[in-house]
């Protein structure tokens, strides 16, 4: 008699969890072992990793291929400046507040752009981001088109010493990345995640099996927008200066993020992590070559799309049936 058992964790996923836990401990101690420049770079890596995970959830799972997430990066950045300068809020409170505001703002935005499909949706999101940029460029209290700096008083309220601030800003970035990855993982593992994964693979079958596609997509859009704004706040807390062009840059906050997700493996949790590592490896090795760096990025993207359309992780997963985040259900038929 055989009794099938349903499990989710695999050996690889258990090993990966242990390694991840160790890595988090080592990374949390970085302010004591890394130099100032390295700390800054690692903070940037964590924020890009967060953006990539969020974009992957939205585009890779919910099928919302947005090229306008810079709208929420910039919105979060500007809200950090506005809420601290005019509202007198502590920067961390302001950043969390910007997430709430972005969630509220994303509902009417979704009501507009969800009417568009496919390529039209992508262009619609971009147009929306331009509207955001032009709007913030009109606000003279925030420096208009040329931007503004975070006042010294606000910066000092984070921590008295410069090294203290750098460590704090690093920990915030690390914490954000861990929070985003954990939230996305728990979401995908839940029953809502099962529904979202089904939508990823076939919308017509998903709706035929009782999944409300519109509502699921809206939920994902609102949550990713809120988190994206929070990451935006953290990015500009690190930069200490904001301007409309920097805040709403399609290159910095969307093109690079799409590159990361696509070469890493879209529609997988592991993909954005690998993509982020590859992106920064390329950027740091090619930084001295100027624009050649962008040409190499383009070439890498084209080769990966042609040779491994599911990205680097897709290639690995298909070959070795690996899964580092235990999302799959596995049925074991026990013989006894």
């Amino acid at each position, binding site marked *: 008699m055989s009794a099938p058992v349903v499990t989710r964790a695999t050996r690889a996923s258990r090993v990966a969890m242990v390694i991840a836990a160790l890595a988090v401990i080592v990374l949390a101690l970085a302010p004591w072992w890394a130099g100032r420049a390295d700390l800054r770079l690692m903070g940037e890596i964590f924020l890009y990793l967060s953006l990539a995970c969020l974009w992957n959830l939205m585009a890779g799972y919910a099928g919302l291929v947005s090229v306008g997430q810079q709208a929420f990066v910039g919105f979060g950045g500007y809200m950090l400046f506005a809420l601290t300068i005019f509202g007198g809020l502590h920067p961390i409170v302001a950043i969390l507040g910007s997430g709430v505001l972005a969630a509220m703002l994303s509902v009417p935005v979704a009501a507009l752009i969800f009417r568009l499909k496919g390529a039209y949706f992508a262009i619609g999101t971009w147009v929306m981001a331009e509207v955001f940029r032009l709007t913030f460029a009109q606000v003279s209290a925030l420096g208009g088109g040329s931007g503004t700096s975070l006042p010294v008083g606000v910066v000092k309220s984070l921590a008295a010493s410069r090294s203290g601030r750098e460590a704090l800003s690093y920990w915030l970035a690390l914490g954000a990345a861990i929070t985003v990855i954990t939230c996305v993982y728990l979401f995908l593992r839940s029953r809502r995640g099962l529904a979202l994964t*089904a939508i990823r*693979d076939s919308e*017509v*079958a998903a709706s*035929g*099996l*009782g999944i409300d596609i519109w509502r699921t997509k809206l939920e994902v859009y609102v949550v990713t927008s809120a988190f994206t704004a929070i990451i935006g706040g953290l990015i500009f807390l690190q930069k200490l200066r904001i301007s409309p062009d920097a805040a709403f840059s399609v290159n910095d906050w969307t093109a690079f993020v799409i590159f990361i997700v696509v070469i890493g493996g879209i529609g997988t949790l592991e993909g954005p992590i690998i993509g982020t590592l590859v992106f920064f490896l390329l950027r740091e090795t090619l930084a001295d070559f100027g624009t050649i760096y962008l040409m190499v990025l383009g070439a890498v993207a084209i080769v990966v799309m042609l040779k491994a359309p599911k990205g680097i992780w897709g290639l690995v997963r298909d070959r070795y049936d690996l899964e580092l985040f235990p999302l799959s*259900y596995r049925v074991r*038929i026990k013989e006894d």
Partner: protein
Amino acid sequence: MSALLSVAGLRKSFGAVVVADDTSFDIAQGEAVGILGPNGAGKTSLFNLVTGALSPDAGRITFQGQDISTSSAARRCKIGIARSFQVPQPFGGMTVFENALVGAVEGAGMRSHEAEAHVLAVLEDTGLLAKANIRAGALTLLDRKRLEMARALAARPKLLLLDEIAGGLTEAECTALIDTIKAVHAGGTTIIWIEHVVHALLAVVERLIVIDFGKKIAEGPPKTIMDSAEVKEIYLGVDPDV
């Protein structure tokens, strides 16, 4: 006894192509009904209208006495209508088990442990248990068709719509499929089955509806229908004068 599903005056056309032309019929609780008709007659479109994948130009669809003409496809599944797709639509990146789990969790609204046990039972019944861990995208066409049925059954429907699932099966496989469908029907599920493999259909259904150019042209007990000259002419291509 009132009808489980009632379709009245259903119309749908795409430009000049009419896929439903004033179609009306009732399906009683616990019935098994077959739908016949040549290719392009509007059989699959009829399923799309009943499940909400298409919205009708006119007409009413009533399920358990409730007008569902404007309900979403998702809502219709939740209240008990599930279907298999003629062209399989597997969730390719998910395993066979997960595919069926979607039906149990979303369609039937089961809790996780209940859903897992139910899915295992359905996979056992449909002969897919040994392939539970395979990604659906890697399945053969035959297994994809099996999966279509497994996924629909996992949603624990009151009304099951099957769209050409017997085509391409060997004799033994076909017999197994008939047994599975009979067991589902015996369990109280109402079935509407579109099928070109007529002997499989006749082994299960109690009534036949024949459709051509979106119009219902005949309806009745299988034997009467199969013997009628009109059906032989339109569906089987037999010249009535011969």
